C-alpha cells in the first residue's frame, strides 16, 4: 500500500531526493532508499546525474534545467569528496544540484486520474466563442505548436477557460505556465469566475497545474498540453521532458509575431471598440530641450487635452535616470503639472503605494521608467512616451505599452502619444500592427457597428 501511495504522489515527476522528501510523508521519506530501489527494479524509475559532466566543458549540461556549460561552475564537494564536482548556477534558486546529485524521473500514470465534473457556464460572447472554437479545432488538427495572439482586455481568460474545460473533459492533462507574479492574480480571477476549477488546481492531482516554468521542470512526460501564457517557450530537452509523447504547446502572446506563424488572432477587446493607434510626434533636439528646461509644445497640448478630458496620464521614459531629468524639467517648465505628478524610480513598497494613490485619482500624472509599467485598472488613462526612439524600445514593448490604454468601455479612445527625435522602424511597425488588428477586427465583423 505504502509502495503504491508513494508512487502515485511521484508519478510523472522528475525530482531530486530533497524534493521527494517534501512531497512524501514522514514514514514514506524514512523508507525512501528502499522504495527507490524497488521502483528502479520495476522499471518505473529512471536515474541520472543532475549535471552531465565531462572533461570537455562544452559537453557539460544541467539535466534539471537544461543550462549549458556557461552556467555550470566547479566546486569541491564534501558529499562525494571530489575536487571537480559541478553545480548549476541557473537553477540555484530552485535547489542546488551537483554532479553527485541523482535526478529521478518517474513514469507517468496511464491516464487522467479522475473524471472532470465541472460544466462550463461562462459568459462567452459570440466573438469569444468563435476564437475558442478556433483554438479547439486547431488543437485537433495541429501536431505540435499552436500560436495564439490574444490582446489584453479581450476576455483572454474566458477564452482560455472555455478551451481548458473542453480539454479537461477529454481527460487531457494541462500545465498552465505563467510568470510567478501573475499566478496570484490569475488565481484571484479564477476564484471569482470558477471556484470549482481552483480546487482542481490546488489538489495534488496533476490534471491541471498552474505554475511557473521552473515548476514545469519537475515533471516527466506528464502533460498533454503546456500553455505558455505570456512566456517564450524554451526549446530545450528539460522543458520538453515534461510533455507526454504526443504533447502539444499553446503559445499565447499579446503581440503579433514576425517570425512564428499566428494561428489564432483575437484582435478586439470585450467592448468591441478599435484599439487606439499611437500618434507619433517628431521633435528635434528633444533631449536637449528637456536638459535646458525649454518647453515642448506637443507635450503641452497632450497635458491640456488630458486635463480637458478630466483624465489621468502616464508619462513614460526609457530609463530611471531620465525620470529624474524629466521631473526637474517639469518642475521648471510646468510647475502646476509637476505638483500633480508622482514619480516612481524603482519597484518597492513606496512605488506600490503611489500606484494605489494614482488609481484613486490623488495624482493626475505618473512619471516612471517604461520597464515598471504594468496593467492598471484606470478608466480614463492616457499615455505619453518620451524618447520613443530610444533603442530600448522594440516593437513588442511599444505594442505592449499601447495595449494598456483604452481598456475601459466608457473611455475606449484614450490617447497614446509617442514623442521622439526621429521616426524609427519600431514606431512605424507598432502603428502598422495596430492598424492591422483594427482592420482584421472590422473585416471579421467583430467591431461594434457605431464604433
Amino acid at each position, binding site marked *: 500500500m505504502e509502495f503504491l501511495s508513494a508512487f502515485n504522489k511521484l508519478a510523472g515527476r522528475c525530482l531530486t531526493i530533497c524534493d521527494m522528501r517534501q512531497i512524501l510523508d514522514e514514514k514514506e521519506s524514512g523508507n525512501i532508499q528502499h522504495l527507490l530501489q524497488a521502483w528502479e527494479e520495476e522499471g518505473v524509475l529512471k536515474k541520472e546525474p543532475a549535471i552531465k559532466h565531462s572533461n570537455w566543458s562544452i559537453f557539460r549540461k544541467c539535466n534539471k534545467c537544461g543550462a549549458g556549460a*556557461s552556467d555550470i561552475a566547479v*566546486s569541491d564537494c564534501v558529499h562525494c569528496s571530489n575536487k571537480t564536482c559541478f553545480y548549476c548556477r541557473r537553477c540555484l*534558486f530552485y535547489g542546488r544540484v551537483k554532479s553527485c546529485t541523482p535526478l529521478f524521473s518517474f513514469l507517468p500514470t496511464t491516464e487522467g486520474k479522475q473524471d472532470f465534473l465541472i460544466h462550463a457556464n461562462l459568459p462567452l460572447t459570440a466573438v469569444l466563442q468563435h476564437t475558442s472554437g478556433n483554438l479547439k479545432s486547431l488543437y485537433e488538427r495541429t501536431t505540435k505548436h499552436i500560436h495564439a495572439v490574444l490582446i489584453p482586455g479581450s476576455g483572454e481568460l474566458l477564452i482560455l477557460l472555455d478551451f481548458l474545460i473542453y480539454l479537461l473533459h477529454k481527460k487531457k492533462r494541462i500545465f498552465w505556465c505563467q510568470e510567478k507574479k501573475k499566478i496570484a492574480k490569475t488565481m484571484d480571477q479564477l476564484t471569482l469566475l470558477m471556484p470549482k476549477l481552483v480546487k482542481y488546481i490546488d489538489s495534488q492531482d496533476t490534471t491541471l497545474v498552474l505554475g511557473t516554468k521552473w515548476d514545469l521542470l519537475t515533471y516527466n512526460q506528464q502533460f498533454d498540453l503546456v500553455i505558455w501564457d505570456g512566456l517564450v517557450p524554451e526549446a530545450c530537452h528539460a522543458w520538453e521532458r515534461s510533455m507526454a509523447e504526443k504533447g502539444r504547446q499553446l503559445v499565447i502572446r499579446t503581440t503579433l509575431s514576425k517570425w512564428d506563424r499566428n494561428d489564432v488572432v483575437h484582435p478586439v477587446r470585450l467592448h468591441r471598440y478599435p484599439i487606439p493607434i499611437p500618434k507619433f510626434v517628431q521633435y528635434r533636439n528633444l533631449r536637449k530641450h528637456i536638459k535646458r528646461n525649454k518647453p515642448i509644445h506637443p507635450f503641452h497640448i497632450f497635458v491640456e487635452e488630458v486635463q480637458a478630458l478630466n483624465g489621468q496620464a502616464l508619462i513614460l521614459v526609457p530609463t530611471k535616470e531620465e525620470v529624474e531629468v524629466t521631473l526637474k524639467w517639469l518642475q521648471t517648465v510646468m510647475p502646476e503639472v509637476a505638483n500633480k505628478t508622482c514619480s516612481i524610480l524603482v519597484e518597492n513598497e513606496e512605488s506600490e503605494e503611489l500606484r494605489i494613490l494614482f488609481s484613486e485619482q490623488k495624482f493626475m500624472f505618473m512619471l516612471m521608467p517604461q520597464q515598471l509599467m504594468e496593467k492598471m485598472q484606470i478608466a480614463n488613462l492616457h499615455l505619453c512616451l518620451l524618447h520613443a526612439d530610444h533603442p530600448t524600445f522594440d516593437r513588442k514593448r511599444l505594442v505592449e505599452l499601447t495595449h494598456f490604454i483604452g481598456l475601459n468601455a466608457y473611455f475606449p479612445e484614450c490617447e497614446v502619444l509617442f514623442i521622439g527625435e526621429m521616426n524609427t522602424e519600431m514606431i512605424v511597425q507598432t502603428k502598422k500592427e495596430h492598424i492591422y488588428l483594427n482592420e482584421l477586427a472590422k473585416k471579421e465583423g467583430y467591431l461594434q457597428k457605431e464604433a
Partner: protein
Amino acid sequence: MRWWSSLFPVRPSCWFCDQSIEQLFFASAWSKVCKECTVNLSPIHPPICEICFRPLDDDMNVCGDCLQISHRDRVQNVSAVSYTSKTKKVLARFKYLGDEGYAKYIGTIMCDTVEKHYSPIPFTLITSVPLHQNRIKERGFNQSQLLAEQIGKSLGLPAPSLLERIKASPPQANLGRNARIQSLRDCFGIQPDKMQLDFTSQTILLVDDVYTTGTTIRECAKILRHAGAQTVYAVTFAR
C-alpha cells in the same frame, strides 16, 4: 550561450548583478562592481571603532560594546561592507543557495580590505571560523573556509583549517545578542590532527563572513591564543 559565444566575448558584467561595466584587468576589486551595487553594499568608511570596525557617529575611537570587553579578549577586526539588504542577498546566494563562485568575488573584496587596513602586519597564517560537521553536510561547504582560501591565494599565504566546532549551535542569524554569547561558549577547539603544530610565532588572520556581536571571532581567537598564537586579527565581509 553556446560554445562559439566564447569567440565573441561580451562586455564584462558586475559581480553582483547583470549590469555590464567597464573593467580593467588589474583594477581594484570595487571597480568590478557596478555603481548601484557599490552604493547598496555600502563599503565602510571612517569614523569607525578601532577594534570592531563599527561605523561611529562621534569622535570616539572605541565603541560602547568594545569598551565592555576586557583588553585581553579583544580581537581587532576589519570589515569590507555594512550589513545592508543587498549584503544580505549576496550572502544568502553564497551561503544558503550555495553559489560557491561568489567566494572569489567576496574573497577578493575582503582581500582589498586586508591590504588596506592591515598592510604593516606580517601575517603568517590564515584560518577560518569552522562549521559543525552536520552543517557542512547540509550546506556542502564551509563558506568561511572558501573565503580564507581565496584571501590566502591573493596574499600568498597558507589557509589551513585549524579549528573545529565541537558543539552544534543553532543558526546565529536567528538569535539575539545574549543568546549568541551563551550558545557559542566552549563551542570550538583545535582540530586533533593540528594539535602538534607550533603556533607560538604565528600571526593569524581569522576569516568569517559576518561580524555581529563578535562572539564567534572572540571564541575562536581565545582557542588560538591558548594554543600559543602570538596575535590574532580578524577580517569579515559584513559588519
